[in-house]
């Protein structure tokens, strides 16, 4: 039961919200826990034991870490046990087949045989998300940022909260645990905002993403038939599809949580305004970036090895080299984990390495960049610099997503090199864009959707940069937005006859 399907939007969510709102506070917790179980069972059936097991194990080890108190070795041992066990379950379910397939390839190369039989392994819903949440909680307890939770049900409610369990955002227990357990009724404003966010998400997904999915799937289904500007165009369209789809799903998630009076962290912040790859990742899938920053980047940067390197390198090679070395030391595990987290495919690992190289280059070239940015022409026309930086970042993003969507690294490279071959238009056909599975009318809706979402992102970005606000908020405006979005989704949405329902992309991770 994904967040965009009728069963969720018209039956499940309204029923849970209604029961929750009418019930007294103590009962509301039970209602939420039951709703979480029902939601999970509807997708993963018996695999619910994995999330229950994770909750029990996290609860128990959290208490043990705290109880170890001032005995660092015992404390560390409990933490290591927890990390190894949680990651082992994740690896076993998600990466076993990937490892076996690669071992088979190696064996095939050397011996001509494939020794391992690959069997389908069912992966529990949201395992990549709730495992990171559980690890984050345990590390926070270890670092004494949080006391260990004494109430198992509270921790279970946090780990299994149905709006976040499928696609995130990856929340911190310290931020969301208490408001969730508080179980207060949503205010009228929260209900209005919740409905608005859900409709905004549906608008992005059903008007733009699901339509773009058709053309993207057509080209990725026959990658060698398309070259030049068509392949380059598809990389752009896929990036837009992924943004509309994932940020749209996040809008639905955040909107759903608001109906229970819970404010979740934002996962996107106008990513296409980024002026560098590192800034892009501070605006795109923010909760994943923050998790890696808090639990991998900073700990590695502050590790003894990094400190030692920093001290020695500063003396021997200077400040810049020391910084480059420390950054690369911390960035490497972050981006390897980022790539692997997305799934057991080489193109995801490549995607991680791609950003590791780019972010390392950003650090290496920092002095050169400073002098480039300080050029006279850019001082005279700073807008020009902004445009150049944004354009560069877009190229980086589009190229990365081209590999991200590919069915394996080989296809990614083939498509990448296809961009540099000219596309020869069939003289008997009109524009190629009309032969990719969607009608002219669908293109018109895609253009409209991109314009509306683009304009909204521009306004939000302008407001955040200047601190000013347009007089376009308040209850009456909210009503207007809700009604317009609702009408647009009903009339222009890609649902029903002629459209295929498209599953949420990140639910697969």
């Amino acid at each position, binding site marked *: *039961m994904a967040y965009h*399907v*009728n*069963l969720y939007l*018209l*039956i499940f969510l309204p029923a849970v919200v209604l029961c929750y709102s009418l019930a007294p506070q103590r009962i509301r917790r039970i209602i939420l826990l039951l709703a979480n179980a029902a939601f999970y069972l*509807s*997708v993963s059936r018996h695999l619910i034991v994995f999330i229950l097991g994770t909750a029990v194990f996290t609860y128990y080890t959290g208490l043990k870490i705290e109880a170890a108190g001032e005995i660092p070795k015992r404390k560390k041992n409990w933490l290591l046990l927890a990390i190894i066990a949680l990651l082992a379950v994740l690896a076993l379910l998600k990466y076993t087949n990937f490892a076996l397939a690669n071992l088979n390839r190696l064996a095939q190369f050397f011996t001509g045989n494939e020794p391992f039989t690959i069997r389908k392994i069912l992966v529990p819903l949201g395992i990549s998300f709730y495992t990171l949440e559980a690890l984050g909680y345990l590390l926070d307890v270890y670092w004494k940022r949080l006391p260990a939770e004494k109430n198992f049900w509270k921790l279970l409610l946090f780990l299994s909260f149905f709006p976040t369990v499928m696609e995130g955002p990856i929340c911190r227990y310290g931020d969301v645990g208490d408001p969730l357990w508080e179980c207060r009724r949503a*205010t*009228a404003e929260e*209900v*209005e905002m919740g*409905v608005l966010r859900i409709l905004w998400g549906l608008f992005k997904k059903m008007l733009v993403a699901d339509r773009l999915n058709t053309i993207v799937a057509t080209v990725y289904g026959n990658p060698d038939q398309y070259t030049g500007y068509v392949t380059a165009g598809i990389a752009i369209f896929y990036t837009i599809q992924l943004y509309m789809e994932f940020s749209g799903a996040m809008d639905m998630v955040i909107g759903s949580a608001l109906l229970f009076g819970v404010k979740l962290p934002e996962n996107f912040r106008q990513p296409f305004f980024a002026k560098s790859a590192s800034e892009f990742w501070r605006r795109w899938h923010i909760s994943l970036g923050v998790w890696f920053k808090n639990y991998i980047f900073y700990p590695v940067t502050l590790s003894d090895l990094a400190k030692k390197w920093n001290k020695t390198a500063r003396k021997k090679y200077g400040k810049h080299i020391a910084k480059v070395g420390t950054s690369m030391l911390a960035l490497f595990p972050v981006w390897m984990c980022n790539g692997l987290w997305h799934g057991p495919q080489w193109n995801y690992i490549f995607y991680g390495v791609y950003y590791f190289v780019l972010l390392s280059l950003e650090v290496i070239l920092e002095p050169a960049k400073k002098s480039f940015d300080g050029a006279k022409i850019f001082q005279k026309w700073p807008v020009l610099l902004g445009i150049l930086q944004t354009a560069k970042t877009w190229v980086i993003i589009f190229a990365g997503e081209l590999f991200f969507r590919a069915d394996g690294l080989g296809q990614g490279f083939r498509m990448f090199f296809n961009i540099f071959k000219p596309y020869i238009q069939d003289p008997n056909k009109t524009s190629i864009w009309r032969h990719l599975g969607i*009608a*002219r*009318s*669908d293109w*018109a809706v895609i253009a409209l959707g991109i314009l509306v979402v683009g304009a909204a992102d521009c306004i939000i970005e302008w407001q955040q940069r200047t601190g000013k606000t347009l007089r376009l908020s308040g*209850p009456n405006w909210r*009503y207007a937005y*809700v*009604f317009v979005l*609702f*009408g647009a989704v*009903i*009339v*222009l*949405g890609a*649902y*029903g*006859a*002629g459209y295929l*329902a498209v599953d949420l992309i990140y639910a697969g991770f």
Partner: protein
Amino acid sequence: MKKLRIIGLFAGMAAIVLILNMLIDPVALSRAKRVNNRNRNYAGILATEENMDVLIFGDSESYTSVSPLQLWQEHGIPAYNGGVQGQCLAETWSEMSTVLKQQHPKVILMETCMLFRYHGIEKDSQMVLAEHLYEALPGLRYHSFWKSIFYTDQDKKKENDWQKGFHLVSGIGGLEDANREEDTKKEAKMAKLNRWYLDRLIALCKENDIQLVLYSAPSPRNYTPARLDFLDMLVQEKGLDYINMNAIEEEIGLDWSVDSYDGGDHLNLSGAQKVTTYIGDKLAQEYQLPDRSSEEEYRQWNQDAEEYAKRVKKARKKWKKNKKAAGTIGEGVNP
């Protein structure tokens, strides 16, 4: 105040749905030929003013096996094929219960392949919910009707309703071995949801004094021996009329090397013509359906039949060409 604001929000949304429904539904039905995709046949039936004696429902096996205008040419039986690709019984229920409010057929032919269709409880529940919504708010079914603003000349050519829901395909994809073998992927059982819908459909036909006839179009790919045995038991249990065309392929004169366009899954024009002739004879003789070809009310049907005959002639020529190069899958004539 808080409650009022929330009630106002949802009341406003409900009003929007109702207004859109009121606007879209009549406009779409008044231009039914411009309704696209799987709603086309559904809107086509609703937009037909003349009463039809036979309505056909089912999935792709139905609209590739029985041609309404051939029934008209041979027996003067006005009919419409309401089948759509991958139709499920929830859709059949929704379609049938709506069209029976204005159509009064004597016989409903229901192709049986869809009885075995089941996508799992979650997907099917979503579909059932959608169909109930469409029943209550039919305008939502045609929500993308605005697309006809972008019609091209080519699209306009497709508007003609000469096929009455039938899909005319001239390609040949011969089947080398037409022996039916068991296929574990083709389950020979009906989901509980489908049984429930079948019972509702049977009751609906009884209520409207309509003869419900189940038929299995010839299709070695879909009808395994186990499925055919299951259907025999089912029709006995329910006391339904049933035409199993898989058991009488020789009598019909089917030749699997030239009568299918996709290796024994669906029939092409040649196969459909043979099946339609057989079904037409049966309808005229056993169900005493009258010949209405000379009735003034049905004058348009004769014109449609003329257009249909032209198309069939062209398609037969293509089919003959394909026959010479048998084994290749040709292009369909119909959209």
